[in-house]
């Protein structure tokens, strides 16, 4: 080996060495000559300056990549020159190496304080000079790479945020807040929660009451937000058309199974609060326990009984709801697991115990929701709440103000038919599995003037149908519903009899005609049952669960006729233009 020779030129030895422009500032002629020569021999270009002032000027004019600076110089000393050069360089990393024969530690420290990165002591040693230049070149390149990447990340992040804002506006148009503003609903969810996978929708049901959906998609960011769009569309669309919670859930599950990848799904709870009869039906698939807080403070758990939405095929999906009777003063509370997992700086989580303790604390008459929020606030201190912390409560059987938030029925702008007649008959198996109400409502709403009265019409249709099915076909004794305990039994029996139903028939006949500026809709409903004696006096008494259906229809209609043996009812509904909204809709919720 030829190691004992002068050795290969270090620059040629390493072809990757970058050719740099290096500023050498030194007032001492001989030192400057030596350094200039040494640096040049390392393959770099040298810019020279004779004092500090000149060094700053040359730096500003030529922007060299590195600066070698004598400490003691006339005009402007090295420390001050370094300070000015670093300031000019801004975010660019310009290594400044002080040339010194100083040995006083305090003076050396001052050099570093003024922005120097290292020292080179006299006499100059070419091996050390080369090593230092290389080391700082690596540092400079790393800094440059990081700066470029940071700028890129910053730009991407800004882009992402602006895209999220646009996406949120689009999302708000589709998944508007529905009737979340109603007095009966309290909620907390971050405006950007959808990008954390949380969803919260509420929509008035045409028959009165509210449908509420709270959910939590796996993952976060765009993949989680994408699933929220169809869920919102299905939820609002089908609720507005009067579909049952089960139908809506099946549709959402089917859609999510079809569009999402296997590992994405949505833990959710559906609350179907009927203002009439006093009942709330719950479906919980994968969300933490929800709670039904009774007026007297008693707490019932609403556990997850199903797989989340978007996991199993439609054939395996189970949309069975659990029904509870509801009275004014009862409240349903649901939260996503972000509430349970909300944690302090020390990493302690809020947890289920604290949530239940807050719900159970009835020392004053604060609403359960407010108690939870208060407890969370106290627990978190000043810590900011995450985007995935969503909680909602719904007061049941409250005088209904959600109607103000009812989505406007889609108006095609085309004039519908003013005079028509149709008959629709359901038999046997169809009665078991099909809900005809959305279809019948749809037909009626083809009359443009009737769209403002969709709630009334839905209630009439639904009460007539329920009456015919439950009493006419299934022959369920209505007095069961008079007690809270019989209530559950009634609905269990209803499910059971419906499953084994084989015969029977329910026929609707709808007829509409123009009447002055408004019109008249006649809804006839006839079942194949034995009929019943029409009650002499129709009662709207709060304690009367049964028989209220017909009384309610009576209030909404012009006239209610019982035909034949009582299995045939005709409701005559007259609508004047622009007066439909004045109907008293609160009758159903009692006082």
């Amino acid at each position: 080996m030829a190691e004992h020779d002068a050795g290969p030129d270090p620059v040629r030895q390493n072809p990757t060495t970058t050719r740099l422009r290096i500023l050498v500032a030194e007032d001492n002629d001989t030192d400057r000559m030596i350094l200039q020569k040494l640096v040049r021999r390392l393959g770099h270009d040298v810019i020279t300056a004779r004092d500090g002032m000149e060094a700053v000027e040359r730096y500003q004019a030529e922007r060299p990549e590195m600066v070698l600076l004598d400490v003691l110089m006339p005009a402007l000393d090295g420390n001050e020159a370094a300070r000015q050069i670093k300031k000019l360089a801004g975010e660019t990393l310009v290594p400044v190496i002080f040339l010194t024969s100083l040995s006083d530690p305090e003076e050396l420290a001052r050099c570093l304080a003024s922005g120097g990165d290292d020292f080179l002591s006299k006499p100059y040693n070419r091996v050390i000079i080369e090593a230092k230049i290389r080391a700082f070149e690596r540092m400079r390149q790393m800094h440059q790479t990081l700066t470029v990447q940071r700028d890129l990340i910053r730009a991407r992040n800004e882009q992402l945020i602006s895209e999220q804002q646009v996406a949120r506006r689009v999302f708000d148009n589709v998944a508007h807040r529905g009737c979340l503003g109603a007095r009966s609903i309290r909620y907390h969810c971050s405006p950007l929660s959808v990008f954390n996978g949380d969803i919260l929708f509420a929509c008035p049901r045409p028959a009165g009451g509210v449908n509420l959906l709270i959910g939590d998609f796996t993952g976060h960011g765009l993949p989680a937000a994408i699933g929220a769009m169809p869920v919102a569309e299905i939820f609002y669309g089908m609720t507005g058309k009067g579909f049952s919670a089960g139908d809506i859930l099946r549709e959402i599950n089917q859609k999510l199974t079809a569009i999402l990848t296997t590992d994405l799904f949505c833990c959710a709870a559906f609350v179907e609060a009927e203002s009439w009869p006093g009942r709330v039906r719950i479906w919980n698939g994968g969300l933490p326990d929800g709670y039904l807080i009774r007026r007297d403070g008693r707490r019932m758990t609403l556990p997850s009984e199903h797989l989340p939405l978007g996991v199993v095929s439609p054939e395996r999906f189970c949309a069975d709801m659990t029904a509870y009777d509801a009275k004014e003063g009862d409240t349903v509370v649901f939260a996503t697991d972000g509430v349970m997992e909300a944690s302090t700086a020390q990493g302690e989580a809020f947890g289920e115990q604290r949530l239940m303790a807050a719900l159970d604390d009835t020392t004053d008459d604060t609403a359960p929701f407010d108690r939870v929020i208060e407890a969370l606030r106290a627990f978190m201190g000043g810590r900011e709440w995450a985007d995935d912390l969503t909680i909602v409560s719904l007061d049941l059987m409250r005088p209904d103000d959600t109607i103000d938030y009812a989505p406007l029925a889609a108006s095609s702008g085309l004039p519908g038919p003013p005079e028509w007649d149709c008959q629709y008959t359901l038999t046997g198996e169809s009665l078991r599995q099909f809900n005809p109400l959305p279809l019948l409502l749809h037909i009626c709403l083809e009359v443009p003037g009737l769209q403002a009265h969709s709630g009334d019409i839905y209630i009439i249709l639904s009460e007539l149908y329920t009456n015919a099915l439950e009493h006419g076909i299934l022959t369920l004794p209505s007095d069961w519903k008079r007690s809270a305990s019989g209530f559950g039994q009634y609905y269990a029996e209803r499910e059971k009899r419906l499953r084994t139903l084989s015969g029977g028939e329910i026929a609707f006949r709808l007829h509409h005609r123009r009447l002055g500026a408004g019109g008249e809709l006649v809804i006839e409903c006839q079942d194949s049952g034995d009929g019943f004696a029409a009650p002499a006096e129709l009662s709207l008494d709060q304690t009367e669960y049964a028989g209220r259906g017909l009384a309610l229809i009576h209030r909404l209609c012009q006239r209610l006729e019982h035909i034949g043996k009582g299995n045939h009812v005709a409701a005559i509904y007259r609508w004047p233009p622009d007066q439909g909204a004045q109907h008293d809709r609160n009758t159903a919720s009692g006082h």
Partner: protein
Amino acid sequence: MTETPHLDTEALAELQEVMEDEFDVLIQTFLSDSEGRIQALWQALESSDEESFRKSAHSFKGSCINIGAPRLGEHCFYAEQAARAGRLQDAGDSLRAIESEFEAVTDALNELLQR
């Protein structure tokens, strides 16, 4: 204790290799600059300007070390120390030592150049 030599021949040989044909110019520059520095030191001493004296001595020291004249650098260091401590009497003594050492260095360097 060995006395510090006038010239560091090893350092000078390396310098010669680094500077190539600019070596002569470098030495000539050193010699003429140094004359100027010595004059500046005398002026500072006469006007009792300790700060200026100290700085000049420090700077002179640096170039002596770089050029390979360690003993001259040593005298510069004593001069710098004396000025820093305000001992102008000692500073004057050191400056006289610098002057005589510089003559010796000049002779030695000229000899080197003629080789």
